């Protein structure tokens, strides 16, 4: 039943060590879009988290449209990196690949580390499927997989067998394959099945027989690992729980963390939230999350397009709620004219950009961080606004609150950057204690202050913020718009003096945000030295691991990760000047690099990766070596 590929061999000691000590394992589940791999991965993630491992995941599915079964462009994969050390990335090369059909094997096997383990469902290795995947001969026989450990058995048949008692049609029966596979994986890594059994029961509450069937498949897969003599290759891994700060944990995706963070921000500001969006991958998830949270005083509005979305959000802010809008690159492009009006009218607004591969429609389901130029510079005229970037799913929660704080305190639109990787990736999240967050309640102007005789919509407080006036407030009726204004009164004023002054104030206000943000910290390493690796956004994980590994090898390198891109922390300039070299890894062609060189005149060098895939630790580590050799 279990046949080793001819010429396959057992991983040697040296090979084992070549790979960072078994403190972490990278497993990739790959199958057809229809095989439910994302689900399998999600549940495996949960059980892994429950086992107290630290982890990071990377779901990688095909473009929005469903592809025909068995084709390579229809392959959906879910990778998880977990273990007993701190995990910041979904891992580089998988150690274990579970492939449900030939296409899944074809697409993913090249990434498997040498000597890694392949488990395949040979029930799917029919001539037809092999052809669809573009295999002339079956890789299970032709020895082309020699450099890996190969194990294959007929998961399909085993599953159908296992669920027979529940009298499902063949199609339904096969749908349980993923649970069978999950069962095997749980056994391999010594995970508890209970939480998944519970989950299946609630998921199929309406169809108990389906619940039973899936549970049976799960158990069968587990039993299969337990009893059948698979032989050494699939030895039983036991990964110790990772040491983590004590406290209550859950897993969270970036999209959910960001959504919840927006809710928290609105609550801390004492505002109702108006969220306007137009569906677009990978931003839609935020709209979907918020649409269910009406009890928090949230109105969600699916607008006719992105322009209407940003305009409606600005309208809501004008009317006294917290206006929020969200999209990704192409949609943000359409919003830029509207954002200009928010800059001009100085209304609070949070604009979330879940970045994806581009230009144009580009690669909707792939991740990228190439909209930094657009965020910082992408408007007509001198239209500065604060820009913040989240580094991880859990960080998205903090960044969302920060965006709301700045927008309402300074009466300014704020751009919050996240990306497809953060949006979809899951990680364990230490549940925050909301009581520990200081509220920042908004106060609306209720009447004309003594010192003014008439309402002054463009009066300034010491931080240059103008008053927020709600329509409905008697005695404060006034008109605003996108035309240049007289300071104070806000009346139309085209005079050179007014334009020069208002331009100055708009810029000074945004620059002034620097006084309410923390100084830039160094995440890892000394705050001066040979090399600083400076990143932003979702490159945090791979940069951190690469720097950590390099430091373990005794290299003089530090990791600096920037959250506040506009304005930048006061100490950032001096900090950077303290390093001989500066390396900026970005999933774009060097956009943060431009900002750093302009601001600080430092010779920041770009490490660029624009492939729709996150950095691999090794890529950054190699660049560090290159810089320091």
């Amino acid at each position, binding site marked *: 039943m279990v046949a080793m590929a001819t010429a396959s061999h057992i991983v040697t000691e040296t090979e084992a060590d070549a790979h960072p000590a078994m403190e972490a394992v990278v497993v990739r589940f790959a199958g057809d879009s229809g095989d439910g791999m994302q689900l399998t991965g999600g549940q495996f993630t949960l059980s892994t988290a429950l086992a107290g491992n630290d982890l990071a995941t990377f779901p990688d599915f095909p473009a929005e449209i469903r592809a025909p079964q068995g084709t390579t462009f229809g392959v959906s994969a879910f990778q998880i990196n977990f273990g007993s050390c701190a995990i910041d990335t979904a891992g580089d090369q998988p150690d274990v690949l579970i492939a449900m059909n030939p296409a899944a094997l074809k697409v993913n096997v090249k990434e498997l580390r040498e000597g890694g383990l392949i488990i395949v469902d040979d029930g799917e290795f029919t001539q037809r499927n092999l052809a669809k995947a573009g295999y002339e001969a079956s890789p299970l026989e032709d020895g082309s997989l020699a450099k890996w450990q190969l194990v294959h058995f007929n998961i399909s048949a085993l599953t159908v067998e296992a669920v027979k008692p529940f009298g499902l049609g063949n199609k339904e029966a096969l749908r349980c394959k993923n649970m069978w596979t999950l069962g095997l994986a749980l056994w391999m890594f010594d995970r508890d099945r209970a939480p998944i059994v519970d989950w299946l029961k609630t998921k199929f509450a309406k169809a108990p027989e389906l619940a039973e069937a899936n549970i049976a498949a799960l158990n069968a897969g587990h039993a299969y690992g337990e009893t059948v003599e698979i032989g050494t290759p699939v030895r039983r891994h036991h990964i110790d729980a990772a040491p983590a700060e004590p406290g209550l*944990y859950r897993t969270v995706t970036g999209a959910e963390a960001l959504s919840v963070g927006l809710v928290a921000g609105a609550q801390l500001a004492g505002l109702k939230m108006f969220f306007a969006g137009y569906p677009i991958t990978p931003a839609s998830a935020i709209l979907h999350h918020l649409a269910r949270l009406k009890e928090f005083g949230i109105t969600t509005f699916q607008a006719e397009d992105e322009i209407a979305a940003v305009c409606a959000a600005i309208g809501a802010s004008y009317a006294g709620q917290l206006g929020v809008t969200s999209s990704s690159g192409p949609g943000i492009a359409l919003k830029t004219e509207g954002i200009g009006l928010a800059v001009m009218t100085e209304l609070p607004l949070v604009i979330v950009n879940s970045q994806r591969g581009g230009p144009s429609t580009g690669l909707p389901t792939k991740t990228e961080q190439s909209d930094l130029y657009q965020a910082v510079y992408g408007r007509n005229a001198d239209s500065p606004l604060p820009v913040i970037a989240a580094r991880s799913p859990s960080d998205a929660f903090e960044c969302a609150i920060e965006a709301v704080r700045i927008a309402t305190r300074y009466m300014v639109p704020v751009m919050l950057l996240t990306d497809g990787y953060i949006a979809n990736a899951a990680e364990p999240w230490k549940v925050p204690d909301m009581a520990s967050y200081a509220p920042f309640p908004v106060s609306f102007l209720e009447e004309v202050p003594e010192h003014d005789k008439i309402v002054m919509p463009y009066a300034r407080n010491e931080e240059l913020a103008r008053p927020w006036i709600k329509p409905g407030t008697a005695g404060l009726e006034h008109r605003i718009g996108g035309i240049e204004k007289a300071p104070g009164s806000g009346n139309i004023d085209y005079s050179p003096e007014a334009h020069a002054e208002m331009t100055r104030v708009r810029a000074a206000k945004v620059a002034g945000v620097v006084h309410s943000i923390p100084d830039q910290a160094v995440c890892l390493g000394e705050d001066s030295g040979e090399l600083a690796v400076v990143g932003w956004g979702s490159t945090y994980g791979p940069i951190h691991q690469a720097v950590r590994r390099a430091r373990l090898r005794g290299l003089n390198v530090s990791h600096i990760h920037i959250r506040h891109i506009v304005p930048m922390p006061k100490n950032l300039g001096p900090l950077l000047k303290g390093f001989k070299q500066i390396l900026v890894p970005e999933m774009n062609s060097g956009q943060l690099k431009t900002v750093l060189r302009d601001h600080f005149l430092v010779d920041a060098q770009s490490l660029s990766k624009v492939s729709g895939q996150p950095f691999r630790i090794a890529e950054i580590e190699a660049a560090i070596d290159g810089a320091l050799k």
Partner: protein
Amino acid sequence: MNEMTPNAALAVTTAKDWASDQEVRWCPGCGDYAVLKAVQRTMPDLGVAREKTVFVSGIGCSSRFPYYMATYGFHTIHGRAPAFATGIKLANPELDVWIITGDGDALSIGGNHTMHVLRRNLDCQILLFNNEIYGLTKGQYSPTSRIGTRSPSTPFGSVDRPVAPCMFALGSGARFIARVIDVHKSLPDVLKAAHAHRGASFVEIYQNCIVYNDDVFASFTARDFSAERQLWLAAGEKMLFAGGTKGIALDGERLVLKVVEADDPAVLVHDPRNRGVAAMLIELPGQGFPVALGVIYEDPAPTFESSVVEQNLAAAKGKTPDLQALVSKGQSWMVEKEPRAE
């Protein structure tokens, strides 16, 4: 927001109270002045408070309108006023929202938002100043300009077929459609009807641009033929014009409208809820026919903001906004161990 100004709504006001202190900047003789005056004269009769009133506009000569009203006003960007208005009304349904727009603003760049605000039926009044030209940018032709319009961008005459604003509104699902003339005495009455209607009220105002498109409506607005060429509709009343000497009836053969003698029993009685007839009235073929004016179509339906509010309340019912619970959602686990060094 009521409590802040308990009986402001009751305060008696005059037209002057609704005029802002800003100098009006339209060309002398512009039809916009007449509309501004009419609106300012009408507001006191609507029983709304100034502070509860918001005028939202796009960009154009007409869109300068909000600056001249002593209410809240938002002069936004070109073509997007309906989207801003939607955000404003959803954020505070108590506000009385007026959208001021032009033929270019509402039907060239803004056509999509006009359609969506109408189909959603947001409770607001939409005043479309149709002068069949781009006034603010110095006279280019617009989507309502007639074929052959010579303008800086069409020196040899425009060739594209214009859109009929009221027909577009009907096709977009509007539930209130009216048509009036800037200087006509019945403008205030139509404004009142538009305000009384709950939902999106679409009002096309034929407005004369004295500088770039003077007298383009003269064929039916000029004193001498106004009677002959204007059919003022009133619900439940016969469709009569020409000083009550002529009427409109349905040609049973060809199923189109025709002009008949006033005493012809076939003269139609205006039923504002008939969409088919509304379409025929909006498009009366000109030649020999009058122009249908007044409230052409009205058939109320639930408003967007009321449905949204209703659903928000229903969905929130029984749930408490517990932030701590929200962040703790889903399966979670405790970690007791000491933090690792590093």
